[in-house]
């Protein structure tokens, strides 16, 4: 019987470990290098059908006169558009889909909201313009130089932006916009107040308002973008949600620096 020294034992162990690591690495590399699973024709046809449906709706929106939003989950971007031109774009840092439930039970299935155009989006709370009404003085030939009107407020002063707001569309669809880290700077009491208020409104909406918020997309934007969207969103805006899963060439082209 051959005698083995402890040193030989250690060597053997190291050799075995090295060999095992090499084999596992090779297996992992082989797995990575393997060709992606081939998409069968039926799946490809279904994907193309869906893509074409979305493209048709986008073409329809681009040929209309209404403003519309394009939410692109694949690019994490929300774009305000008109006639195919991107007017402003906003980086979406979080996207979730909310559905109502009562006592932990989903209230009802929302009407289909993907692959359709959402209509008549309006801000809630609305952005209101406090119009100055000026009664002109009776005309005189030698009228004195009129007093200059007061300097109007800046857009930031004119349109205070709520910490959270929604854009409500027809058929119970809505988007909820939340600024990133909205409540981080607020006191604990204020944060609790905001949470309580949001919870209360959600409970009331889920319990009693069947026609509102059947599906709600929650978008997290940077505070600057959230404020900008609130101040700039035109009335009766439309929305289309693109799919994540689509060919790269179908991605919209974005002007550099738009909305940043």
């Amino acid at each position, binding site marked *: 019987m051959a005698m083995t020294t402890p040193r030989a034992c250690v060597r053997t162990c190291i050799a075995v470990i090295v060999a095992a690591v090499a084999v596992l690495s090779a297996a992992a590399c082989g797995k990575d290098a393997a060709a992606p699973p081939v998409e069968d024709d039926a799946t490809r046809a279904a994907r193309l059908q869906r893509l074409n449906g979305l493209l048709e709706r986008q073409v329809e929106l681009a040929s209309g006169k209404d403003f519309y939003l394009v939410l692109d*989950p694949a690019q994490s971007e929300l774009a305000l558009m008109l*006639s195919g031109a991107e007017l402003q774009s906003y980086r979406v840092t979080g996207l979730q*889909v909310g559905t109502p439930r009562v*006592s932990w039970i989903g209230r009802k299935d929302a009407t289909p909201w*993907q692959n359709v155009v959402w209509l008549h989006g309006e801000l809630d709370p609305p952005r209101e313009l406090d119009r100055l009404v000026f009664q*002109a003085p009776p005309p005189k030939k030698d009228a004195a130089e009129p007093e200059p009107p007061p300097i109007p407020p800046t857009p930031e002063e004119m349109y205070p932006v709520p910490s959270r707001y929604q854009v409500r569309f027809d058929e119970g669809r809505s988007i909820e916009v939340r600024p990133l880290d909205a409540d981080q700077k607020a006191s604990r009491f204020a944060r609790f107040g905001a949470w309580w208020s949001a919870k209360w409104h959600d409970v009331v909406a889920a319990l009693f308002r069947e026609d509102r918020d059947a599906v709600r997309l929650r978008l997290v934007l940077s505070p600057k973008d959230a404020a900008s969207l609130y101040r700039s969103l035109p009335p009766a805006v439309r929305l289309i949600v693109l799919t994540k899963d689509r060919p790269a060439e179908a991605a919209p*082209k*974005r002007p550099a620096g738009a909305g940043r």
Partner: protein
Amino acid sequence: MAETEPGAAATPPAGAAIPTPPAAAPAGRWPRRIGPFIITRRSAWIAAAAVVLLAAVAWGGTGYRYRPYVDEPVRLSGPAPRSDRELKQLVSRLDRRSRELTTRLKAAAPRGVYIVIDQTQNRIYLRKDAETLLDATCSAGSGMVLKESVGKKREWVFDTPRGRFEVLSMLRDPVWAKPDWAFVEDGLPIPTNPADRFESGSLGEYALYFGNGYMIHGTLYERLLGRAVSHGCIRVGREDLRKVWANVRIGTRIYIY
């Protein structure tokens, strides 16, 4: 712990003063009999606590449930192809349609230079394809309402229109033909001679007319840029207006939102 019912108090020793029963707790209130059930104070508390707990759990689960966004699963609609050949033909047809729609979508987007105006935030952008050439402040309509006090008692609202427009004419050293409201606002009679309406210099060096009396032009009040002060036109600072003028031509698209 044993619970002493109000009616079961011990008899006081002889000679001691008889204590008066507390007025607030009427004797015989607990336990209560409701139908076949006898309810003690403890069981009532437990039941109340259970109801509150259930309500809290129900309330906690009422509202909105948020989940990460996922695409709907794809499903082939319409009649299913009967053979592999038919399926391949369908894929080819859909592929062609997809390319055609993508081309149409790209064709809808503006080509070359175009102007974008954010009227609520008083910003003007000059863009060329994927590049932003200018990002500057401007002044859009104030939204003010002007009411005429005599005559026809007309009313004007100084809003900037929203939508898609085109540069219809380009004017160097524009002369402003003052409309009626400009006289009404200043308390002056409306001139009968059209020549009395013309005013030079107030529109700056250049004006780009885009219809219905609206223009992109210069201003004498550059300190007010960034605020909504105009009567509906877009006022731009001198240097920015020069850059806009240098890049646009008649037909350039203007998008105002």
